[in-house]
């Protein structure tokens, strides 16, 4: 038994607090649960009223997400040979036939390429700059650091106007390279600020000992600082990745086909006749799931990431 403490909340107050927070958590997660469950509904089930809480699950939404289909006349449908494979069978059940793959897989892959590409670049450039800001006297250091942060205050549409013109001149419009460079430029401020915080926490003495042992500055950076900063670098990388993954404004304005990512694409998913909500929900579920998992992995560094390192726990 621990001693009585005045700062320890009473049992009742703990119980009430737990109950209220649980209630909030349930309400706040309801929209997400609804989207995930909608992705397993049939078209008619998804828009029935009153809304269906219990339903027979189907993967129609996912099949529709990855395919394009047409709806032939009923008489024509009857004359077709039996369905070939599970996807075709599910499409046939809705009275449609598959005509080809949809663009979702491509757009998803673009999100992966651009997300990882810009994250890698942000981390490489960001770690180098953060190390320099942390350890050396860089002239105008505070001004530079503030300048790097202030780039985040620009409304994305304001930045998009000249970028659009510039990319058009340089042939970078709608290319992976163009989007990777752009997202890196946006993410670098976050990366530098976060990584500087993490590197500041590594005692200088370790490097100085290494320098005395005959390491060059660069070797000391690579063999002493980098391994120590690994956790910080990993969580910074996840933040950069999530930003690039979620970004919409630049993607919708600067890409149209080749390099388009998933966020501008998902809202354009329409089925045969009207918006296909189970397919949209399936796309949203597949797209949001990785971020939900990362959030759980990141929970210890979350606060630091979202406040640019201004608040550390």
């Amino acid at each position, binding site marked *: 038994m621990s001693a009585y*403490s*005045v700062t320890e909340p009473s049992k009742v107050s*703990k119980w009430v*607090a*737990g109950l209220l*927070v649980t209630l*909030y958590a349930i309400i*706040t997660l309801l*929209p*997400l649960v*609804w*989207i995930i469950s909608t992705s397993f509904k049939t078209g008619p089930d998804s828009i*029935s009223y009153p*809304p269906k809480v219990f339903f027979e699950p189907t993967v129609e939404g996912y099949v529709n997400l990855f395919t394009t289909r047409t709806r032939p006349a009923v008489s024509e449908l009857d004359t077709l040979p039996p369905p070939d494979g599970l996807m075709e069978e599910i499409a046939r059940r809705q009275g449609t036939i598959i005509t080809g793959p949809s663009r979702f897989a491509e757009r998803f892959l673009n999100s992966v390429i651009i997300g990882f590409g810009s994250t890698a670049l942000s981390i490489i*450039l*960001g770690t*180098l*700059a953060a190390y*320099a*800001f942390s*350890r*050396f006297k860089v002239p105008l250091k505070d001004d*530079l650091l503030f300048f*790097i942060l*202030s780039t985040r*205050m*620009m*409304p994305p*549409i*304001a*930045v998009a*106007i*000249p*970028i659009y*013109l*510039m990319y058009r001149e340089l042939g970078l419009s709608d290319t992976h390279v163009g989007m990777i460079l752009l997202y890196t*430029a946006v993410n*670098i401020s976050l990366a530098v600020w976060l990584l500087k915080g993490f590197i500041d926490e590594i005692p200088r*003495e*370790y490097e*100085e*000992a290494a320098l*005395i042992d005959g*390491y*060059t500055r*660069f070797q000391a950076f690579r063999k002493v600082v980098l391994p120590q900063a690994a956790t910080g670098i990993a969580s910074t990388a996840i933040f950069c990745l999530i930003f690039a993954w*979620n970004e*919409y404004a630049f993607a919708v304005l600067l890409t149209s086909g080749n390099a388009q990512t*998933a*966020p501008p694409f998902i*809202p354009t998913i329409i089925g045969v006749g009207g918006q296909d909500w189970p397919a949209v929900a399936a796309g*949203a579920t597949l*797209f*949001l799931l990785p971020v939900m998992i990362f959030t759980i992995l990141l*929970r210890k560094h*979350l*606060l630091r990431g*979202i*406040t640019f390192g201004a*608040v550390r726990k």
Partner: protein
Amino acid sequence: MATPSIDRLARATPPSLARKVRGLSDRAIAWIFVAPTILLLLAINIFPLIWTIRLSFTNYAANKTNAEVKWVGLKNYERILTDEDIWSNMTTTAHFLIWTIVLQVIIGFTLAWLINRKFKGNDLLTTLIVVPMMLSPAVVGNFWTFLYQPQIGVVNYIVEFFTGIPAASFSMLGPGGLAPWSIIIVDTWMWTPFVMLICLAGLRSIPDYIYEAAEVDRASKWRQFWTITVPMVLPFLMLAVLFRGIENFKMFDMVNLLTGGGPGDETLLTSIDLKREAFEKWRTGYSSAYAIILFVTVFGLASIYVKALNKVKER
């Protein structure tokens, strides 16, 4: 055994000695390390910004590249600042900004205060609550249009279920004046956890002995809350408001997907209006001036606010 001795040796060594060790000079390394970042920012942030400033004095239209570009001086700025529609968009943005901040601060602080009771399972619940703010605002906006569908939407159903107001009698995103509140609800749903997390950090930073001392002085719980808890969390809360303020002033993605500025101009935030001017009407010169005005506004407001924040911190 080995590490402490190296530590001691390192501490005893003056930094100037370390700097003389072979390899590139520290100054050179500093520049080599910082240069790529600065170059990238110059190319993709500063150069475009200067270009925008230049364009803002012209009548350039990006879809008519062959047309003659005329220098129009301050005319674009004059037109924007005297345009009543723009002021009405600013009002719409201010309404959105103020209400989202008020709701998020109240709910976020309350949640943090409850979670700080350290009941069993508070870690797990915190992680669950935080999920919405990590998601793509565009995809979030898109799926809320589904939840907000007129007549058959889940939100309408829930309202009918609890209040008896017929689901078919109102529309969350349609005409009837609800749309500005609908976007506030979604933003609050998404970003309350952000304010909550920062408040929680603030609450956890208050050392127990302050409360113990207050208890010895027989200060009531109510008094402790207002004289210890609130002032000590305030700098954190103000930081959260700064972040939310800047983000929501720039708000584009979620609202663009949810309402696109409609119905009519009811939810036409400045960012969405700017997008229409720049990428639908292609008035590039005009919208460049618009962009500069927005940037100066957010930068100015943020600077004033940061000064106030620093004063609070000093107290």
